[in-house]
């Protein structure tokens, strides 16, 4: 079986993050959840993750802030941004900050899986480039 990434889901809606974790587990993806930006950053300091799925609009620390923090912490962690809306401008901003892709809510599960696989592939590709 192909290797699967370790995923962290960050969303302030408890029901949303938990169901997403359940849906990913059906497809054999291992995921943890965090309910806020600061919780997510704590978790990322403690454990290694390949991929973060991050809601953009959260109280206190916004997704965009968390994104730049993640990229400071470890630029090889790929981030998929989730958002209820994406104008060309917000999309531009998000991609400029180094997100791999973004996912519009409500999303289809196939779409999510495709993006996860593509992001992980890029991360693996990067590792091969940097490691001798």
């Amino acid at each position: 079986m192909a290797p699967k990434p370790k995923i962290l889901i960050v969303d302030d809606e408890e029901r949303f993050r938990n169901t997403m974790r359940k849906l990913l587990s059906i497809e054999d993806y291992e995921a943890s959840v965090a309910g806020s930006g600061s919780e997510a950053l704590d978790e990322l300091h403690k454990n290694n993750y390949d991929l973060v799925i991050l809601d953009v609009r959260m109280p206190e620390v916004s997704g965009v802030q968390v994104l730049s923090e993640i990229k400071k912490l470890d630029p090889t962690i790929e981030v998929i941004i989730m958002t209820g809306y994406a104008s060309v401008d917000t999309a531009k901003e998000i991609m400029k900050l180094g997100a791999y892709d973004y996912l519009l809510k409500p999303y289809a599960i196939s779409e999510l899986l495709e993006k996860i696989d593509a992001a992980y592939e890029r991360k693996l590709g990067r590792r091969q480039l940097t490691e001798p």
Partner: protein
Amino acid sequence: MEKFRVLIVDDEIDFVETIVKRLKDRGLDAVGATGGKEALELMEHKDFDVAVLDVKMPGMDGIETLREMKKRKPLMEVIMLTGHGSVESGIQGLQLGAYNYVMKPVPLNDLLKQMTQAYERKLIEEGRER
């Protein structure tokens, strides 16, 4: 004319080959792809200024490809090409940020004019970003 980078996407190989050759003759840096997936892959490795995109393609269609292109490279301008103007895809394409929606067959000079204007727009937007 300034040399800019163009990506031609159409499922008809003959069309792509001919137009790429003729654009190269006019001094443009032109590359062809025969499907949406292939186009997106090419975009991973190279920046393009303008894409010319067929609306009706098997597999990933033009509208879907446009959506992905704009997501990855919002500043790249896209001209949609269509064989039989579909009103629905026309308005959809423009709403998704296509520069224009052009009916086939289009004389090369007209297409070239459209591409130059689209390129001009990209330069203006890039200037704004800085």
